[in-house]
């Protein structure tokens, strides 16, 4: 066990955990932010996606010690009120079904748009390939990303 300092959504947390424990469980069970989901634990589904210094990463496959003091953003840090352009587009397109994958999808899409303001189909496919939506909302995710890119000033 070791004390690890985490910076999540601009807040500081200090937790006493196994340094090898994946960031995912630190976020969910020690920090208490439940929007980041567990789907596979082996970097296959994307449900656990958060931003590390603005880059999308799989929190299930990152030891918590490796991200100490770095800037982590979870779905809760994207906006307080669904005002992020991606979240707005997700609502306009009524993307979610069960919704379980959507935090991860949204974090990946937000990261994509911050790098590429108007992604084409191939860019979107490439950025979203690591994400499974078992409910099959892919056509809407794609539409929502396009809508968000158009809505952007």
């Amino acid at each position, binding site marked *: *066990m070791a004390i690890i300092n985490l910076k999540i959504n601009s807040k500081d947390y200090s937790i006493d955990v196994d340094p090898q424990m994946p960031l995912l469980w630190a976020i969910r069970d020690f920090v208490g932010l439940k929007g980041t989901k567990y789907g596979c634990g082996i970097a296959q*589904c994307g449900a656990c996606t958060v931003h590390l210094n603005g880059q999308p990463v799989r929190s299930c496959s990152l030891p918590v010690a490796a991200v100490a003091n770095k800037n982590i953003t979870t779905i809760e840090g994207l906006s307080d009120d669904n005002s992020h352009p991606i979240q707005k587009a997700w609502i306009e397109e009524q993307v979610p079904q*069960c*919704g379980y994958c*959507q935090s991860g999808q949204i974090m990946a899409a937000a990261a994509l748009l911050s790098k590429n303001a108007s992604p084409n189909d191939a860019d979107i496919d490439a950025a979203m390939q690591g994400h499974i939506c*078992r*409910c099959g909302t892919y056509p809407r995710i794609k539409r929502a990303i396009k809508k968000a890119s158009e809505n952007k000033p």
Partner: protein
Amino acid sequence: MVSRRQFIKNTGKASFALWLGATSNGFANAAFITDAPSNFTPFVKIEKNGKITIFNTKPEMGQGTFQSVPALIAEELEVSLDAITIVQTSGEKQFGGGQAAGGSSSIRGNYDAYRKIGAAAKEMLVKAASVKWGIGIESCYAENGSVHSKLSKEHLSYGDLIEEASKLEVPKEPKLKNKSDFKIIGKSIQRPDVPLKVSGKAEYGIDVEVPNMVYATVFRSPVIGGTLKSFDADATLKIPGVIKVVEAKTTVGKYQYSGVAVIAKSYWAALQGRKVLKVEWDTNGYENFNLSDYENKLRNLSKEAGVLDKNIGNVESVKTEPGNSVESFYETPMVAHHTLEPMNCIAHVNGEMLTIWTSTQVPSAITGSGPNDLHSQIGMKPENITLHSKFIGGGFGRRLYTDYVIEAVNIAKQIEQPVKVIWSREDTTQHSAVRPMTFSQLKGGFSKEGELISFQHKVISPSYFDSVGPNFDKTKVDAIMIEGIGEQAYQIPNIKTSYVYADFHVPVAAWRSVTSSTVAFAHECFIDELAHKVKKDPLDFRLQMLDKDSDTKRVLLKLKEVSNWDKPLPKGKGRGVAQWEFFAGLCAHVVEVSVTKDNTIKIDKVYAVIDLGEVVNPDNVKNQIEGSIVMALTAAIKTGITIENGKIKQSNFHDNPMIRMHETPEIEVHILADGGKIKGVGEPGLPPFAPALANAIFSISGKRIKKMPFDLKLS
């Protein structure tokens, strides 16, 4: 049916409200002021301050019941969806045995009944206003949560009318609105759960945290059917955070299993403890089980006559000339549900009392509010069970089963604190009941004139009912396993369907669209084979067997139109069609394909027509059909579940892959909702997809696919 007027007056209580709902023996409406009796199921509660609560008894798993059920009531009650509070019920006794979602039944089973509740409430409120104002009912109308007078500017909010309304008889047959006056039904209104799911705030079972909670992971027998011999937890108990190691029993259908639970302060610690746990299993000979042998057994069993299901005309008496008949054999795999939220459950046993927090499709089965035996399996009294039912991160049939709940309760009995049991993805893949495979033998015979005069479909498979219950009668047809095959609208003079039972030791489950997800593949690919045999266009061939008006005929005609079926495709493109009607509903697809340079099939477009009779939220239906097609595509072309040396070989998404965005075809959905029988939404999009795709592949390559999963790479 009793429609009693019953008032329990207690105006002093804070909960003073007008409740409207159904008595336990049906949807006879009844109204109560304050505490309703236990045999009454409330659906609407209107409070003095105007607050309107609608209770939704159908769990939300992505299919949209969180909106669609309240929408039916709100429409007739004349309140907007924004003005109501929706309360998801949690298996409470007062809400009865209907608190369950499955079989695409939430709307099709309750369309008029829910509307009548809203309509009855509205009629009573309107009457109450007319009494108060001393004017005729015809001079009053309801709008936006108030009753208005046509004679003056006067209006009264529903909350101001509840006391007067409660004195009135509940109308038995309230007048329902005309479709043309609908403000909610048939409109694509944004779903109330979407903002929660976009902000990460929607709470699923796995997200719940209760004070003092500990975590557990369970080591289960890798060989299916293995029993626990012994375990050595010495090393496990030395892992920091591990609290206790206990046996964990559960039940799925007729099967009973035992695993070993590692209970710890964190899930991570529990997982570390499990890694060093030593367990010995008695594999009972099941370690020799290989799926390939079992598939051979099924092929051999196809020689048996089996049990007769449907027998129309007399297939045996039909004499077909040599060369005028076709025979075929189709095979399908087992598949996993793979809800993205893995199985999980929190249970807290406190003496006689049990509290459960979980995502489930069957809240009333867990609390004992419906006909079930969960409480007897866990030795708890129904009145002592409290459930907190959460948003479901995918159901697809997996969460109709309560094995993960029973297991959590059995663990919770051995520790004082509440315990959250989380199944890893691997646990969920390898220890869940699976969709069974079905093998199909088909025969068709033509007259000299080329008319299809006989059709036979024999299903060879393990039995669902044998798996879920102890007393399956093997001399009878398992109706689940031959689902739909005897009910297609095709008018063929001689039809025979039959079932051959195959013994199996692996628990099987209903999977979204149940057996239609496999038998439709065989059935509708074979219809395509028959069409080609007599050199007919596959869609016209089907229509020619649909002489009489039927829903299937209307769906195919619509599909023909929207898919431009009569317009020849450009060179290098092919298409296939399939339809399926079954208990859940009716849908048909046309799949258009082309071949890429590396000789692989590319799915260019899917056209879908679903027949619903009535539609509540068209956009949500489209979302469901898009999703059904994606799920059906995974089942058609991705590895299923296989068993080697008694163990499920697949474990996670790397070896049991799902369709991803870049593999998703363009999908165009059309909805038929022009009256007629009300049908379901959640499942019908799946069964016709695999056969339509396989038929499309035949049309472009001449390759007849008879086994799922199949490769899009042409050899």
